[in-house]
């Protein structure tokens, strides 16, 4: 599910990933998050020598993503990234006129 608020380039790449989630490198998923407005912090240094950025959204500071680098991201990871973006898109849609309630 996607809603208003995501730029077209993000929607296009999201649908491409959703249609065939196998074999994506993490750099492309980082690009997808970036197109959705998640900016990258300075790389987090890890004990195992990887540079892992934390991605955050300036207008949604409660939602953060840490995506570890791999040449071929496991399909389950890719699908989780898709789910995060779906959730984010749903939130944007709600922000654009949904009901609030206790």
């Amino acid at each position, binding site marked *: 599910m996607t809603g208003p608020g995501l730029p077209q380039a993000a929607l296009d790449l999201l649908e491409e990933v959703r249609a065939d989630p196998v074999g994506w490198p*993490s750099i492309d*998923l980082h690009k997808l998050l970036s197109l959705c407005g998640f900016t990258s*912090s300075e790389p*987090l*240094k*890890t*004990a*195992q*020598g*990887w540079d*892992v950025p*934390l991605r*955050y959204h300036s207008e949604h500071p*409660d*939602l*953060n*993503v*840490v*995506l*570890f680098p*791999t*040449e071929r*991201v*496991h399909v*389950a*990871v890719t699908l*989780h*990234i898709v789910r*995060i973006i779906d*959730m984010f898109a749903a*939130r944007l849609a*709600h922000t654009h006129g*949904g*009901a*609030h*309630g*206790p």
Partner: protein
Amino acid sequence: MDVQVAVLADYANVAAGDKLNVMGIFDTIWAPTFPTVLPFMVLALRLRLDYEDGGRTHDLAISLRDEDGREYLRAAAKANVAAIEPGRFQNVNQVLNFAGTGFGKAGTYAFHIAWDGVESARVDLIIIEGTSPGGSPPGMTGTPGLPPS
């Protein structure tokens, strides 16, 4: 500041009205081989801020360490807290999605949450070599190419 909720889970989100939804809280996972990758986990936090926390900028740091105290990763942020009236409080949610986290060995890991340099909460994650004795825990996947620790 008081940590109201600090858990590892399969899924979490923040719904309208600043409601924190968390599903599938866990503390132990099994992996048949190492190195291994945990496709997804969420660290969900809900912090209660009181009058004395308001009108200031705070340092929030979250680090994942292994049982030897080695820092595995660290996320640091500045939290700008608006003024809070006396007798009032404010809750702040944080959802950190970890995707494709690699682990080189079994052991006890922990997320340490520090507020202004003081550890305020700890969330343990136990990783056991083998298969789950009952049902399907959060899935671990053996992934060639990750360096052992």
